[in-house]
């Protein structure tokens, strides 16, 4: 069972403010309970399948020029200004 505190902690890790904690707790709880069906799939020993690529197919070590991209809140010198860190 997950508690409202668990939800609060994860939401804060995700940098999310949630208004109706009770509703989130219920719905996320239902989702996680539903995920529990994975326990009965009997796949403990299954090896993971992944996509593979050869080193020669990777990008070459070449500079790809790009027009300057303007970000939000850049100052005159070009820095991005970000709120202070706690």
């Amino acid at each position: 069972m997950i508690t409202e505190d668990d939800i609060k902690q994860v939401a804060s890790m995700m940098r999310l403010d949630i208004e109706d904690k009770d509703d989130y707790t219920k719905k996320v709880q239902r989702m996680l309970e539903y995920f529990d069906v994975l326990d009965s799939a009997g796949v403990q020993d299954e090896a993971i399948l992944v996509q593979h690529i050869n080193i020669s197919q990777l990008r070459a070590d070449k500079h790809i020029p790009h027009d300057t991209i303007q970000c939000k809140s850049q100052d005159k010198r070009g820095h991005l200004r970000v709120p202070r860190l706690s």
Partner: protein
Amino acid sequence: MIPAQTATELVRMISSGETTAEYIIGQTLKQIEDTSHLHAFLHMNSNAIQQAKEIDHRIQRGEKVGRLAGIPISIKDNICTKQYPTTCASHMLDGYMPPYDATVIRRILDEDAIIIGKTNMDEFAMGLSTEFSAYGPTLNPHNTEVVPGGSSGGSAVSVATHTSAISLGSDTGGSVRNPASFCGVVGFKPTYGMISRYGLISYANSIEQIGPMARSISDIQLCMSIVSGPDVNDNTTANSTPVSLSEQYNATENPKIGIIRQMASKDTRIQNILNKAIEELSSHGCQCDEVSLEMVDYSVAAYYTITSTEVASNLARYDNIRYGYDMDYTGYEYHQYVTKARARFGAEVKRRMIAGGFVPSAGYAGRYFLKALKVKSRLTREINRTFEEYDYLISVTVPILPFRIGEKIDDPVSMFLVDINTVTANLTGKPAISIPYGVVDGLPVGIQIMANSMEDAKLLQFSHILGDDTQ
């Protein structure tokens, strides 16, 4: 006149001078106005007529034009377009203008397509009803009280109502095929890695693909021949073979079709449509047997575990620091600021991110995420074995009829189960098509056919058996 022709037909008419791009685009814009109550579009191209005129001039001057010259194409709002906003139907990206075009956009523009507008969707593609758009739902043209499916609902409605000949959607767990089925159009999810995802704003990047929607299978083939194949900007496309129009794929004689037992519908009216399709296939010499894919029973749980994990990570970049909307820094500490800025995400998006914070985290890792990856792997091996014996696998695309707006919005899990027939193609990376085939209560029903990886062209060619005369 509503431009109801297929893209293939329109290309012929425009380039032969039988009609003009300007006329077709003009009619399309008029139709967009007439169907605006369905809310298929989020942003329009205000230069469409001008662009059409330029194409007409080039044709009149005898210049060579592209293979999509003057064709109105709509684009789901999670595919980056330099000229038009790209918002993923989220207030988090209100008015966002990407500084680059997605690979698919470059490829269709190189063929002189006209991007008519950007279509509505569930916020960041999370949903299967287009009810979760931050800008309001899209309505089903067959019955405005039911959902059009999703998340590419706007794209499906646009194709169904002739406001575009082709639309590019994205399919993470059925998001192209599900609305195609609900709106009565053709929708195609290619093999994973067949179409470049460069410029597709990620929801669950390990399984999703851009997919075309159209009113005919030939149009899907035309579109695939332009957008598919390797792209240096997407490493996962490195080993793909593009779909070619000229090549004739040596169709298997009397192909073997597997009917997936786990994907049968409990609604006999829907199941009857599947039976009709099987009869038609049999009459063309196909050999149809029931097959079993045991892992399908776990597929939806695995699907939501993987997508929650990936979305929590993929959407972390929206912190309103490098791009985003105006919100003053004054008085905020960095983490407080980011939290406050991210309040613009909708509830469904937040819910899935929070679930995604639980499943891969240290305490829950073995419990959910790794098991989901193992189910995905087992399912892939299972389907690969099945394809050793069978050429194609068949089921209905969605086991239920389009539901009423608001009906499932409050229960995440009942919503999940609508995906049961579609997520398998995403988890295993296989190509899958949804073909409109029959109507129940005035609502369309689609048939889904899957093939083995990289057999996209073969699958599309085969699909004509069910697709040719059902327009």
